[in-house]
């Protein structure tokens, strides 16, 4: 153990003396990882798993700081304005990065003010329906919704969140109409499906899995492009409802303020590339219902761009429809 530490210390000295520029020295002090949500949620878990791994990989402490508020906008805006020195990073999520900028006003432009490094985890949504409903697959859901317009109530984590927009998109694409019942967060919305207060929701896999295992709800599909390893029997919405390109997937990714030096971004990116195969991180992600993922900064940026375009169309349609 001591030897290993010695070697590590020696290596790090070599590394730091070998490269002259201050950026290449990175990291020399603790790195702050901002979680733009309250502690205890799903993004918080992913943030802490990532922080734990980066601490090992980078050899400095990585401090998780919760800056919750306004559906992640406050924390994300904070990071967008932070010094681009690699010491302030964000565990951003799809909501504040790809949905909020088109649905409401934000202080940052995700394409200009943020520098995406890598998605670290994705989590599909699961379409769950109450056990008392005569619905066991997507075709039946569409048929039922068409026969009873406005009668089905769906729960969401609040207006403008992914749980709301994924259903809104589904309705636009299938020509159905259901009633939106917002809750304060995803967990109570899921609980309402269990108790029967609402009939369905497109809920995070994290919240859905325990209920599926206990057989208190009926899961009929996942919203991701591919089937989820956590529930391989569930078809995707795209295949089951024949909706090409339908996808609503929650992701969490490490994002730096725009202008962060290239060598720093590369170091973080390299470390995250290895995290995908790390056994501990994998196991922790799996319990959270998430899948560990790695993307290059370019892939990540393109994805945000695509999503912004997709939700912009939906927001336009929803506003036009009213």
């Amino acid at each position, binding site marked *: 153990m001591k030897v290993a530490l010695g070697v590590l210390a020696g290596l790090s000295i070599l590394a730091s003396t070998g490269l002259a520029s201050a950026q290449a020295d990175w990291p020399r002090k603790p790195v702050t990882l901002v979680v733009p949500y309250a502690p205890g949620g799903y993004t918080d878990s992913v943030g802490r798993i990532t922080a734990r791994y980066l601490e090992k990989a980078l050899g400095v402490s990585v401090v998780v700081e919760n800056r919750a508020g*306004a559906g992640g906008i406050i924390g994300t805006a904070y990071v967008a304005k932070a010094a681009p020195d690699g010491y302030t990073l964000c565990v951003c999520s799809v909501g504040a990065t790809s949905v909020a900028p088109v649905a409401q006003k934000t202080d940052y432009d995700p394409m200009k003010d943020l520098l995406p490094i890598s998605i670290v985890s994705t989590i599909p949504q699961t379409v769950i329906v109450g056990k008392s409903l005569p619905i066991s697959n997507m075709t039946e859901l569409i048929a039922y919704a068409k026969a009873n317009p406005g009668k089905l109530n769906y729960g969401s984590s*609040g207006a403008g969140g992914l749980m709301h927009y994924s259903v809104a998109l589904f309705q636009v694409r299938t020509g159905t109409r259901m009633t939106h*019942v917002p809750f*304060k967060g995803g967990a109570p919305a899921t609980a309402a499906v269990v*108790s029967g207060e609402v009939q369905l929701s497109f809920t995070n896999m994290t919240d859905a899995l325990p209920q599926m295992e206990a057989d208190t709800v009926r899961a009929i599909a996942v919203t991701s492009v591919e089937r989820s390893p956590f529930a391989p029997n569930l078809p995707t919405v795209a295949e089951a409802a024949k909706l090409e390109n339908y996808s609503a997937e929650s992701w969490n990714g490490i994002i730096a303020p725009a202008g962060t030096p290239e060598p720093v971004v590369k170091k973080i990116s390299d470390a995250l590339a290895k995290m995908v195969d790390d056994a501990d991180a994998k196991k922790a992600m799996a319990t959270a219902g998430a899948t560990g993922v790695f993307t290059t900064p370019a892939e990540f940026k393109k994805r945000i761009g695509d999503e912004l375009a997709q939700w912009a169309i939906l927001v336009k349609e929803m506003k036009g429809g009213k």
Partner: protein
Amino acid sequence: MMDVLGLLAHGFTVAGTPQNLFYCLVGALCGTLIGVLPGLGPVATISLLLPATYALDPTGAIIMLAGIYYGAQYGGSTTAILMNIPGESTSVVTALDGHRMAQQGRAGEALAIAAIGSFFAGCVGSLVIALAGPPLAGIAQKFESPDYFSLMLLGLVSAVVLANGSVFRAIAMILLGLLLGLVGSDINSGLTRMTFGFLQLSDGVNFVAIAMGLFGVAEVVSNLETRGEKKGQIARIGSLWPSMKTLLATKWAVMRGTLMGIAFGILPGGGATVASFSAYALEKKIARDPSRFGNGAAEGVAAPEAANNAAAQTSFVPLLTLGIPTSATMALMIGALTLHGIAPGPMVLTRQPDLFWGLIASMFIGNLMLVVINLPMIGLWVKLLNIPYRMLFLVILVISGIGVYSVNNSVFDVYLTLAFGLLGYILRKLDAEPAPLLMGFVLGPPMEENIRRSLIISQGDFMVFLQRPISLTLLLAAAALLISVALPFIRKRRVEVFKDESAI
């Protein structure tokens, strides 16, 4: 029944291992510390200490985190009693009579009653989880939006009862609180309301800022102002311990508080707050001389403290049996379990019996530790009050400042505290009480959320509140309580009116 005892015995062998006892102690100590410090609540502390639990096994980790949570409930009453700063919505009512007792030189008595009441309630609460956790969770699940709305309404009516002055003013203060509670994002539309462009307000006004401003800061200002008239002066400290007579007098108050805490604690969203307010309201209502309340009534400390501690224990029921968090702290517990590789949900009981029963057993042990830690501390706390006020107020100010800052690391919250300190001071001058305001503030958002959800689901039919048995019962209780509060007031008013007329 027998196998529950067997399982509980097994739980004690899990919780009784030296390292788990140690984690329980660490949790209880941390909890007491942050409970005593105003501002930083269990949510912030647990998230700060979460990384420290990575190295522990899941059972040890959850035992420690739970200890922080109920430890904070013990500690929270200390600041409320000594300095009139309620750090949590559940200790607002404790401050009402507790602080009066402290001013009368009965701080030791108040603290001891709070600790003993909490201990009793904590043990009964844990026993209830062990014996009836799953069926209770089933009842909690029967609550739907209309029932929650009616529950919140009952809570607001209780807030009228706890006011000392005019009922009319109390209702006005509740409405002001409701209005303040509505600041921030509207979950139904995603739009922000009444934020005046401040992004920091988009999640609402921070509770700690408003409570600390209205109670703590305003209290300091008005105490300093009345120094000459020695109003803020604390009387000579009397005995440290409550007399046997006082203890026995609070016996039933503790029992009733415990029952209310157990019943409301299992309900998500504000259950514990409603429990402590209603427990206080009930005591005041059934007391032979209600005017003692607000002037240092021991039952006014015993009942709400028992209620909030019982609720702290039973709020674990929905978490452990259904995987549903009832509060921000419980959401954090879910996060902690997830990080330790356990997905909380209906299966925890069967798949992780060690964790479930170990945790429950640790609650008994933790409560015992807390009462052992806290009772000897009372002497120390009371000594703190011997510091002359010209120095003590500096302590209160500094701890409030850093305390409110630490909640969200937000300077904005410090300014909010300042603003509410000013408001609190003005309200004091106008003889308007802040406690009903805080109750409105806490219950406003869930009230709006549930009435809107009820009406969306019922398609605009208000009858839904009367058709559901749970909701109807709660509404009737609220109506009965309101009438019983208003009647003596109306009668008194009529007498006053006649007096005025005869004076002319």
